């Protein structure tokens, strides 16, 4: 597998220009966690539409009788998948595997991935955004809460990194 990656500063400049383009055209920044909430809402809606309508939070995604999937961020996430796929393809980095450190088994890694995903999904809804939509976007428009949020992410991760070292090192 090809592990040679681009220079992070150059990539940072490019990502910053993409975000600027987003602000200039749309008046808003990038983001992705809401698209997962919307896809989940669409799933629940399929099984139990009444439940979505009665849920105070989920019902905001179906307001006005629209499909929860007809949203800007859902299309952004689809694009991100295609862009990542294209980049991984030309760099020959597509490989089916469970990515993990050398000292952890597959099933333990997958359970931790599930747990981390649940925490992240929950936290992103609570904080009204994730690393992209809240931290990157908000910080570049100098939103106060977004800066606090970003430092909190690093604080939470560094404070608990010790307990997960066997998963990665």
């Amino acid at each position, binding site marked *: 597998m090809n592990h040679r990656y681009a220079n992070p500063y150059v990539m940072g400049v490019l990502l910053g220009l993409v975000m600027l383009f987003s602000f200039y055209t749309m008046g808003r920044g990038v983001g992705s966690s809401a698209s997962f909430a919307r896809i989940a809402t669409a799933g629940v809606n399929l099984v139990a539409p009444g439940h979505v309508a009665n849920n105070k939070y989920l019902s905001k995604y179906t307001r006005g009788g629209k499909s929860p999937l007809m949203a800007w*961020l859902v299309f952004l996430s689809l694009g991100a998948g295609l862009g990542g796929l294209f*980049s991984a393809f030309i760099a020959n980095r597509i490989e089916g595997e469970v990515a993990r450190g050398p000292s952890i088994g597959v099933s333990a890694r997958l359970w931790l991935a599930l747990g981390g995903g649940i925490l992240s999904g929950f936290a992103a809804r609570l*904080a009204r955004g994730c690393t992209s939509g809240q931290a990157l976007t908000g910080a570049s428009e100098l939103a106060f809460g977004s800066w606090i949020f970003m430092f909190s992410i690093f604080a939470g991760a560094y404070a608990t990194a010790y307990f997960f070292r066997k998963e990665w090192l």
Partner: protein
Amino acid sequence: MGPLYKLGWFDFAYSLQVAGLIGFLSGFVFERAGFGNVRKLTAIFYLRDFSVLKVMFTSIVVCMLGLLYFSVFGWIDLGRVYLLPTYIWPQIVGGLVLGIGFVMGGYCPTTSIVATVSGKLDGLIFIIGMMLGSVIFAELFPFLEGFYSAGNMGAIRVSDVLKLNSGIVALLICLMAVGAYWFVERVEDKFGDKAALPGGSRRIKWSAATFLILLGLILAIVNPDHIIAKRPSPRIQPQKKVEQVQKPAVKSEEPASSGFKIVDDEGC
């Protein structure tokens, strides 16, 4: 003058295509930077590889400078840009929990997409987890509702909190970014794997850092808030104070956009 969508240059359907393009570009950049590789992402928490911080800070600084310069040149109306509101307590707790989720699961929401398309099963499981987490949040929402809106400070900027003009704040952030780059590279020298880390000449790095600080310095002298406040705005009523001009992202919505409301709009 931007933002184009808010000024009615194109409709909702076209905006979804723009979203696809923006997503494609950002996904591409993320994968190039190595953000589909979970061990590279989490290496930051073990002081071995700070690519995550470098990409994040650089993109923030570039976009921030771009927005401020664009507004000084009159190319973008920051009053129509959606400014994320501050709810300080849920953001602190959400940030801490997201950080734990990051180091536990190895990804953040966008990077898990990139990992999944590169064939990583754990990335897909992380995405399923996020969907479950969102639904759990929604199910618990009646209990969390009070906390969800706790510490509401409105659409407030760092410059409002520090009582400085945004140009000076921009300069401080540029200085902080350069300081952070310098510091994490020293840490990488100590703990990182030199062969795996990207190189780059010292001279180019220092020239770029100088250029960055210079851009911030110009903004600090120019004082963008003052210029924006003085400029007669065609649609927003004149004689509004700076703080108000920055806030009406919500209010100035109605005349500009074609039926699209920002009410249920969230950053992420």
